[in-house]
């Protein structure tokens, strides 16, 4: 029995898919083998911006072993139309052109053709034999440069839109929006301390270890099946139907195990190409993406420019804040600037706020979601400015955050009012942590040490659509089919909620992630929604099963169903103590009273019930001579609502922290003057290794979410938000120099220290 009176929730059972994964038997997307399988490869643009004058595929087609070659001309031409696919808005023409470039290439690595051949090596040889004639155009890769008059224009027909209104100026700025609350000028006038700073961040990648893959078979009856690794099988189905202009009923997506996504495995890249190649050859076609193409040809999260101004009174009250946020969308509109704007000041209660957001196209890959998309860039700015204000006022930075913290009833800058949230509780837990109360020992090796803190917010997207289908076995165990792909242990966290509801053990539930023909529509595993949203469906499924079992018991016992109670896992008839039985006992007889017991439930809760908050504390050591920053100690504090499986909540926090550390210290797309990424490998895109980190300490705060039957709050995303700012504040504490450009890599830190005498 865990805290809060739960029997299963809050315990740490071994995950259901664990044995398959530690023995190497689990089947991931690239592991599938099919009879007659062909292998595909992609031809990509060497230029960041060019008009395609001609593509000659004849030499490739003549190469021995090649079975088919495909270009954008083989894709249906699609109108300029926005569609709501799963949780994101996508322009279908852009989505199609991103899969295979039509007319123009917009970034280095943009796919222009695909090949199917008898093996991968032959397919790669054939790719080299495709001759593409380009007219190279001027390119732009920086967000501010792309906004300037006279910048190279990516889309000649694109005009800035603004809350439904379209201007008549052709520009790389796809969208401008504004949130305004109160009168910021008045607020700044009241303030005693006003700080305004500029920040830049660079493009970073999700860095999942499994590269993208898709295996397609388009059979003679016109039925398309795709085996793939994705965060959302139904989203892939929708994208395929739209991009290939075919009925949804003709597409089946089989989601295999997925080796990480973090937001980057929602869009399709290879799937439509593999499908077309399969249709042309009559064979199944497998495509896997090499690592360099993952960096250059999928969707990283954007670089950005931010200007943040905040003011506070001498007694430590925030009075006003403004933000100018320009985010790179990449080749096509749709950066996460909107999400960033929704998060940038949200941990605080500020009466006067204005936020202006700009979504800007540049000659880089179309950006995509990455764990709390847009929020990490935003928090880097805000949390550094808050640190500076706290210092100016001479107050503890966490006490300042508690004093100004958002709580139930606080209005967000984008309008809505917070329901019950754990912002202040989380900050207080950090303030009271052993780590924060400990003193930081001096370095004995000539290096300098410092401590930093930062907070973060992520809204947790609305619950979304989830479907669950269960059948009860005679031994009382339950087969549970679900549509949420399991990236990090959600089979367990969903099964645990069903087990809790019906009084079984976690091991009594056998969860299966199934294909799109076998379960109802389920939204993507993303937005921190799965344990919340599909868990919500699991609870509803349990309720449905209890109702059905009461009906069965009423027949077996010949008593009225509404006189049967269910408590502590036991069904009992109120008026006769003999008539009682556990779920398992009843299950063995239930089939005789009305056939097999099954239930199908779908849910779509209309809100996430308030977002997730995190506060982090980090100690660093800085080598002044080289600019290298080492992490000595790290503590992450976060409100999880209710932790279903605490080990996996901790794991989400630790993983998010380490991605944030990578983003803060070293990760970036490094572009040369030719608009080409120069570090597209795991060697040079420096993600943290074991040796770069200490253990990551975690403190789980539980302020139950009132919108979920078990109080669950999504936990996956917010832990990536605070680290870069916490590191910047720690580096300042150590050196006296503030870093406002990410990543805070050794050359940048050394230069900043040399210039500022820090």
């Amino acid at each position, binding site marked *: 029995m865990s805290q809060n009176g739960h029997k299963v929730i809050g315990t740490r059972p071994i995950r259901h898919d664990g044995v398959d994964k530690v023995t190497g038997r689990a089947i991931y997307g690239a592991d599938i083998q099919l009879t007659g399988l062909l292998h595909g490869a992609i031809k990509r643009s060497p230029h960041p911006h060019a008009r395609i004058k001609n593509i000659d595929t004849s030499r490739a087609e003549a190469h021995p072993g090649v079975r088919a070659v495909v270009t954008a001309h083989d894709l249906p031409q699609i109108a300029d139309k926005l569609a709501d696919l799963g949780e994101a*808005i*996508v322009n279908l023409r852009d989505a199609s052109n991103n899969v295979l470039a039509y007319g123009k290439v917009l970034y280095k690595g943009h796919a222009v053709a695909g090949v199917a051949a008898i093996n991968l090596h032959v397919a790669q040889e054939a790719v080299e034999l495709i001759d593409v004639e380009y007219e190279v155009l001027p390119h732009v890769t920086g967000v501010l440069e792309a906004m300037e008059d006279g910048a190279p224009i990516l889309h000649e027909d694109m005009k800035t839109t603004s809350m*439904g209104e379209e201007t008549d100026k052709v520009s790389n700025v796809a969208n401008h929006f504004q949130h305004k609350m109160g009168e910021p000028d008045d607020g700044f006038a009241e303030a005693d301390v006003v700080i305004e700073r500029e920040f830049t961040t660079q493009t970073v990648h999700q860095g999942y270890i499994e590269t993208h893959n898709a295996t397609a078979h388009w059979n003679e009856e016109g039925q398309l099946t795709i085996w793939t690794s994705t965060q959302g099988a139904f*989203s892939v189905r929708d994208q395929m139907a739209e991009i290939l202009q075919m009925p949804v009923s003709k597409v089946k997506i089989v989601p295999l195990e997925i080796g990480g996504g973090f*937001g980057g495995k929602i869009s399709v890249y290879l799937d439509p190409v593999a499908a077309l190649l399969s249709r042309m050859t009559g064979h199944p076609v497998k495509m896997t993406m090499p690592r360099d193409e993952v960096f250059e040809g999928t969707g990283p999260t954007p670089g950005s420019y931010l200007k943040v101004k905040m003011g506070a009174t001498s007694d430590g009250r925030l009075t006003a804040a403004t933000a100018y946020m320009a985010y790179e969308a990449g080749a096509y509109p749709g950066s*996460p600037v909107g999400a960033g704007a929704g998060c940038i000041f949200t941990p605080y209660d500020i009466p006067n706020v204005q936020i202006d957001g700009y979504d800007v196209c540049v000659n880089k890959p179309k950006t995509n979601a990455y764990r709390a*998309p847009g929020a990490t860039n935003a928090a880097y700015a805000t949390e550094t400015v808050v640190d500076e204000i706290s210092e100016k006022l001479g107050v503890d930075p966490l006490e300042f955050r508690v004093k100004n913290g958002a709580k139930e009833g606080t209005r967000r800058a984008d309008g809505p009012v917070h329901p019950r949230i754990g912002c202040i509780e989380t900050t207080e837990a950090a303030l009271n942590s052993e780590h924060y109360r400990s003193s930081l020992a001096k370095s004995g090796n000539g290096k300098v040490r410092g401590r930093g803190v930062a907070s973060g917010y992520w809204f947790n997207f609305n619950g979304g659509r989830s479907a669950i289908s269960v059948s009860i076995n005679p031994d009382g165990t339950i087969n549970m089919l679900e549509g949420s792909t399991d990236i990090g242990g959600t089979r367990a966290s969903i099964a645990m909620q069903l087990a809790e509801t019906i009084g079984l053990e976690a091991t009594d539930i056998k969860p299966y992630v199934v294909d799109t023909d076998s379960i109802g529509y389920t939204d993507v595993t993303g937005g921190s929604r799965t344990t919340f949203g599909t868990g919500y469906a699991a609870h509803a499924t349990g309720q449905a099963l209890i109702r059905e079992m009461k009906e069965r018991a009423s027949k077996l016992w010949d008593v009225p169903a509404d006189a049967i109670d269910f408590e502590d896992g036991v069904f009992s008839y109120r008026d006769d103590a003999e008539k009682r039985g556990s779920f398992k006992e009843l299950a063995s007889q239930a089939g005789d009273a009305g056939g097999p017991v099954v239930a199908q439930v779908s849910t779509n809760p209309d*809100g996430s019930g308030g977002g997730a908050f995190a506060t982090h504390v980090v100690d660093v050591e800085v080598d002044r001579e080289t600019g290298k920053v080492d992490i000595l100690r790290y503590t992450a504090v976060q409100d999880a609502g209710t932790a279903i499986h605490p080990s996996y909540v901790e794991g989400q926090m630790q993983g998010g922290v380490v991605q944030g550390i990578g983003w803060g210290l070293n990760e970036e797309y490094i572009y040369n003057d030719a608009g080409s990424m120069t570090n597209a490998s795991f060697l040079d895109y420096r993600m943290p290794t074991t040796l770069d980190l200490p253990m990551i300490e975690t403190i789980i705060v539980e302020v139950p979410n009132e919108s979920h039957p078990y109080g669950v709050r999504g936990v996956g995303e917010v832990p990536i938000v605070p680290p870069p700012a916490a590191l910047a504040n720690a580096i300042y504490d150590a050196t006296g120099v503030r870093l406002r450009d990410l990543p805070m890599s050794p050359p940048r830190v050394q230069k900043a220290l040399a210039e500022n005498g820090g």
Partner: protein
Amino acid sequence: MATIYIPSLMRDLTGGREIIQVEGADMRQVIANLEAAYPGFKQRLLEEGTQRIKPNIAVMIDGRNARRILIDKVNESSEIHFLPAISGGI
């Protein structure tokens, strides 16, 4: 009457007014009444010729995402916000 918070970039339609009270039992009625009082909102909010919100705009009712097809109920104390839809997922 429900309270609508007009985004700063739509206040050109309301003569600068930030908060508007509108009658209506569901979002469809609310938008019809808003259009009647301040013409132009339908064109800015709805897909042409439909009763669906444009995909790049989100409607929030009391902090919860409302459905794009405008079926959500609205009560006397409801607060309604129009926000840019969050993209970045695809």
